């Protein structure tokens, strides 16, 4: 659990839902549609008749920024503001067909787009606002020079308002009013301040970790949110359940779409008091890990990347906080299933690693791993999987003894080590360094 990026569409939808509560004197003409491979076009067109009437803007909504620079914002056919639905549809189809490479080097298939009405405006009407959490303060960034160039000349363009967590409403209002950029046109000053103050309250109450609007446009009392980037603190889900309804945390662009197995693990993790995490880094990688502990798992990943190269590392994951035998069985079985799908002529390596546990019962968790081994013993053998185990903690002797005995009886290759062996020594042993 941590800070997680969310789609632009989600952010705008949340703004729209909460708008009247926060921005009582302002108006947000919310018109946004998320188009994905699962979208039913008829449905969308029926629900959003403006799609057929308005000039449109289309952008991928897949967590990456700099879409303008990457030429991925559709706003003109022959001239700015002449994109209709048919053209937009054609463009999305075209873009989704082949792999897209961003200037950052990220590669992947475009699947999700946000479609909105084109809002004609001059570039000097673009404003910037962002809020972030830093230690014991919240920081608000305000600028009259929004748009894609905001980062160049940041210090001149942007004013910073630091809000202490215990500032009261009056103080917050005062600070934001004082921190207003000097170059906001006089006619828009009051609206800007009003918006910025309530933007901050919205950011705070909705448990954003980061929220940026770049740009937004002010027309009379209307606020147009042209672009939004945000990360949510997903640990707040238990308090925000209703407001965040149907929140999803997409995999970042270029990462393969989360496979159903990973989603299943996430679901178990969500309902368990212990922690189960799994990411697939490279399905074709030879080295698979089954590591206990948020810290140790990172050390294993670091060491594998250092010694064998990052491409050899197939997955990253960890289980911790005393998972039940069944939870561990499910977790291990998922890893075994994924690692035995494609054979590798050189065979594969399974590292069952971990530091010296504080309170997790090693024998109990290994019981779950042994059960999963039993289910997958044939597949593990066929894939020439060599198993290396290292673990310490409560009942580790029993756990090591049991897993070694079970694996040998199943005819699997296994080596086991306890706390007297350095935590990542098995990585060296496995790849013969």
């Amino acid at each position, binding site marked *: 659990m941590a800070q997680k990026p969310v789609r632009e569409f989600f952010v705008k939808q949340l703004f729209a839902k909460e708008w009247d509560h926060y921005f009582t004197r302002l108006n947000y003409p919310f018109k946004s549609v998320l188009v994905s491979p699962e979208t039913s076009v008829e449905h969308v067109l029926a629900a959003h008749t403006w799609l057929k009437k308005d000039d449109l803007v289309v952008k991928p909504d897949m967590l990456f920024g700099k879409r303008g620079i990457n030429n991925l914002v559709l706003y003109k056919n022959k001239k700015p503001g002449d994109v209709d639905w048919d053209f937009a549809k054609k463009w999305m189809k075209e873009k989704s067909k082949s792999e897209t490479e961003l200037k950052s080097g990220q590669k992947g298939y475009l699947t999700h787009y946000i479609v909105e009405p084109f809002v004609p405006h001059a570039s000097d009407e673009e404003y910037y606002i962002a809020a972030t959490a830093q230690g014991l303060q919240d920081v608000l960034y305000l600028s009259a020079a929004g748009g894609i160039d905001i980062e160049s000349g940041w210090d001149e363009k942007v004013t910073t308002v630091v809000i202490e967590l215990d500032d009261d409403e009056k103080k917050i209002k005062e600070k934001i009013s004082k921190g207003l950029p000097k170059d906001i046109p006089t006619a828009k000053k009051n609206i800007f301040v009003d918006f910025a103050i309530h933007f901050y309250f919205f950011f705070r109450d909705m448990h954003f970790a980061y929220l940026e609007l770049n740009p937004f446009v002010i027309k009379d009392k209307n606020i147009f949110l042209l672009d939004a980037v945000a990360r949510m603190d997903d640990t707040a889900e238990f308090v925000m359940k209703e407001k965040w309804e149907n929140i999803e945390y997409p995999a970042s662009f270029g990462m393969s779409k989360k496979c159903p197995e990973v989603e299943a693990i996430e679901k178990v993790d969500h309902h368990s008091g212990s922690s189960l995490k799994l990411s697939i880094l490279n399905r074709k990688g030879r080295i698979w890990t089954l590591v206990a502990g*948020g810290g140790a*798992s990172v050390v294993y990943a670091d060491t594998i990347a250092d010694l064998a190269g990052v491409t050899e590392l197939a997955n990253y994951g960890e289980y911790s906080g005393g998972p039940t035998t069944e939870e561990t069985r499910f977790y291990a079985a998922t890893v075994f299933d994924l690692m035995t799908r494609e054979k590798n002529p050189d065979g594969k390596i399974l590292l069952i690693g971990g530091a010296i546990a504080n309170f997790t019962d090693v024998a109990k968790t290994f019981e779950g791993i042994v059960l999963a081994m039993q289910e997958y013993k044939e597949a593990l053998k066929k894939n020439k999987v060599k198993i290396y185990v290292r673990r310490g903690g409560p009942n580790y002797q029993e756990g090591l003894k049991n897993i070694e005995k079970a694996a040998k009886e199943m005819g699997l290759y296994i080596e086991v080590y306890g706390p007297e062996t350095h935590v990542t020594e098995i990585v060296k042993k496995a790849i013969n360094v």
Partner: protein
Amino acid sequence: MTGLFNKKSQAIFWNNNAGAIQRMLDYDFVIKREIHSVAAIVAPTASRKFELFFYGANQIKIPVYVNTEEAVKNHPQAKVFLNFASFRAAFDITMEALKLHHFKTIMITAEGVPERMARLINLEAKKQKVTLIGPASVGGITAGAFRIANIGGTLSNMMQSKLHRPGSCGLVTRSGGLFNELANIIAQNSDGIAEGIAIGGDRFVGTTFVDYLLLMEKDPKIKYMLMLGEVGGTDEYEVIKAKQEGLLTKPIIAWCIGTIAENFSGSVQFGHAGASANSNLETARSKNMALKESGFYVPETFNAIPETIHQVYQQLLKDGVIEPIIEPEIRELPVSQRKSKNFICTISDDRGDEATYAGIPISSVATPDTGYNIGDVISLLWFKKRYPKWATDFFETVLKTVADHGPAVSGAHNAKVTARAGKSVVESLVTGLLTIGPRFGGAIDDAAKYFKYAYDENLSPPDFLMYMKNQNIPIPGIGHRIKSLKNPDKRVEGLKNYATRFFPQHALLDYALKVELETTAKKDNLILNVDGTIGILMVDMWRSLGYAESEIDEFISGGTLNAFFILGRSIGFIGHILDEKRLQMPMYRHPFDDILYDE
């Protein structure tokens, strides 16, 4: 005081996490702590007042409270708060604890406390200069003095990692598992750690690397430090800054894990919630480079940490900064001798030369020259301490007042009938006693209960009358068959006079007398009767003695007031029984003509 904890540090443990508490007590035993490291447990749904644990082979009781405030009131010396509440409750529980302005160190173990809530906790802790370990932390340890919950793992692992006595390294990590791993590595490559903390895996943890390192800098036991950082956040730069400012002069070994993360441009969450780089500055590689450039001992990789420790330690040995340690004797944990007890006794003890009442030998209370009367003995055996004279005299006044009320009352009558049937003293006595209940003698309990309720709720006397009327209950302790305002009950007069003269305060009696003004205005005989007076004065007595309201409520609901009536009236019952034995009256049969038969 230097260092986070010492051998006298005590904790209040929120949540009855029996495994973790027992591990703390096991550690206490092995390092020969004289006072238990856990002073009390807080468990809001607890039905027991204590939980049983072992200290070595002996079973001990740790008191349990339903809220932190009560626990603090009873254990003011316990300055460490170990919050083992879930991520849902951790915020509220911690804020409540902070409101008491009592704790010096607070530890939160829950993983997944919302960041904004964690930051609000941090802010309050910082204002109060409280060391806040966590959230998402397994805790910390001052070797040979105090261990938090599960840190260090099993006892055998702790011995192997030399966590039972101070070494010379100060260890700070984010991760709990790697804390153990490093403690072990440090023990293998040097003389072990003096103090160590796992600061917690969340992005916003309370007290952070630099704070702990600055504490360790001041601690003469600590000669060098090891910091294990992580990708994500900028806390490690604070440490660099402190070193550059000359605030950290001891050698510091440092490494940040998570070099892998750069390969995935922040798209995979590696490890802890805090382990995600939001800028280039936050990558493990940048941090490791910056640390190295600033004069920290930075190994080539995580796996080279052992050699770096060895090298730093050997240098400090050579320079005479560290002296070789003489290993202390270890006390083995006698697990096999542990046996749970089936009974518990907290009021008396007959194991020594002489049996004791609440610790006082019987001979020291028995004879008149000791100055102890029967009231003192009651206070020792019923309330586990000697009450002041005004209170024990009150006990005796009550016993004397209720001792008998003639042969006609139903209890005495039953005792007499049974004695005439040829039964023994004890059989006749219990027959009389079994009559005591809601209608006979029970008004004492109820008077105490309802008058206390009305007073606590600030009900005016008329409101109280209305309340009882709505409940459809006659006011207990009010009313007498014959006695009235004009013909007052002398026993009541005596009790009232005694209380006004000798009680430090009698607010509930005063309230009851105001109620009596209302009731007697309606009917002359609705006076405060003897049962009511006793019940109400008992409450005034306990309040004067400083008992908590919850304790007084427990006395009432536990039947303590009834017990005074039972004890006192037994004197009278026995009198009637002996009277029957002496008179040798025949078996009693009730006359037909006194019974109305159904046609």
